[in-house]
């Protein structure tokens, strides 16, 4: 029986996170960071936006995006520390920091979205 490594699982999260972030973050940034503040698009009504945000589907999508993007960061940052800074000997600490950070960030995202 070969050794079971969690690497495939974290890589799948990394891949999915990269894809999800690359597809949706630029659109969200353009809409809410550029187009709406500059008046290119009509400013949505606050109450309307809040209703959209409070829909369980919106919450689920945003939560999924936050979690995947955080795990994408965790995996990439882990290897940046391993290879870029030659810190592979601190592997245990780095794994706890990176994936632990992603878990903590996911919990915060879940909390913020539930409270919205």
């Amino acid at each position, binding site marked *: 029986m*070969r050794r*079971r*490594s969690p*690497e*495939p*699982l974290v*890589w*799948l999260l990394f*891949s999915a996170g990269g894809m999800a972030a690359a597809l949706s973050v630029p659109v969200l940034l353009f809409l809410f960071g550029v187009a709406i503040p500059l008046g290119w698009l009509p400013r949505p009504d606050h109450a309307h936006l809040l209703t959209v945000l409070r829909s369980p589907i919106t919450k689920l999508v945003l939560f999924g995006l936050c979690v995947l993007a955080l795990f994408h960061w965790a995996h990439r940052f882990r*290897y940046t520390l391993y*290879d870029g800074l*030659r810190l*592979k000997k601190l592997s245990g600490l780095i794994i706890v920091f990176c994936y632990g950070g992603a878990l903590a960030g996911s919990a915060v995202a879940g909390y913020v979205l539930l409270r919205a």
Partner: protein
Amino acid sequence: MADTITMQVARYRPGQEAEPVFQSYDVPLRKEWAVLDGLNHIKDHVDGTLSYRWSCRMGICGSCGMTVNGSPVLSCATFLTDYAPGPVRVEPLRNFPVVRDLVVDIGDFMAKLPSVKPWLIRDDEPPEGEYLQTPDELDDYKKFSMCINCMLCYSACPVYALDPAFVGPAAIALAQRYNLDSRDEGAADRRDVLSSAEGVWACTFVGECSTACPKGVDPAGAIQRYKLTAATHALKDFLLPRGAR
């Protein structure tokens, strides 16, 4: 155009030098001369003690890989005029131990290559005649079959530089060349090596292997594709009961 160019060639003669030194040679600068032609000129007319590997001088044999002005290239396919007015700095392939001058020890690659079983694996007897294949089935793996084992990808790979246990770009691309071949049934036999920590999971997708490849093989792409295959298998192992895998 000047009629000569200076080649700074790394020399290492065990017993004579403790570490590599550069030696400069002026060679004729001709439009049709590759770096290898410059080295052959030095060997034939200037300094017969210079050692380097070469054979076909047409980008097929994969034996003349060197580091030219910092980049891993086939010295037969790299023209001196592209480096005019010079100097051209010629060093051995990086990430390999140097045996002498520009000759590196390729033992590590030669040991890794058979570990991924890069040949057709089938249980049945070969048919009378050929195994038939459609053009689409050929296209699935043709790109990966262009590898000439020149090891430029290993020389370019920063992961291999840091972790010599990494199976490496060419070996994984060649494993995929057979995994994606409709005639092959050996994917399961290659899985243990490919999906180990030293296999595809060591790769961080820097992509330098595909940049360096002189034959357009795209080893980085082969590795990424296998990561998905390996991850899918890992999920199946985790989720499905033993019999359904």
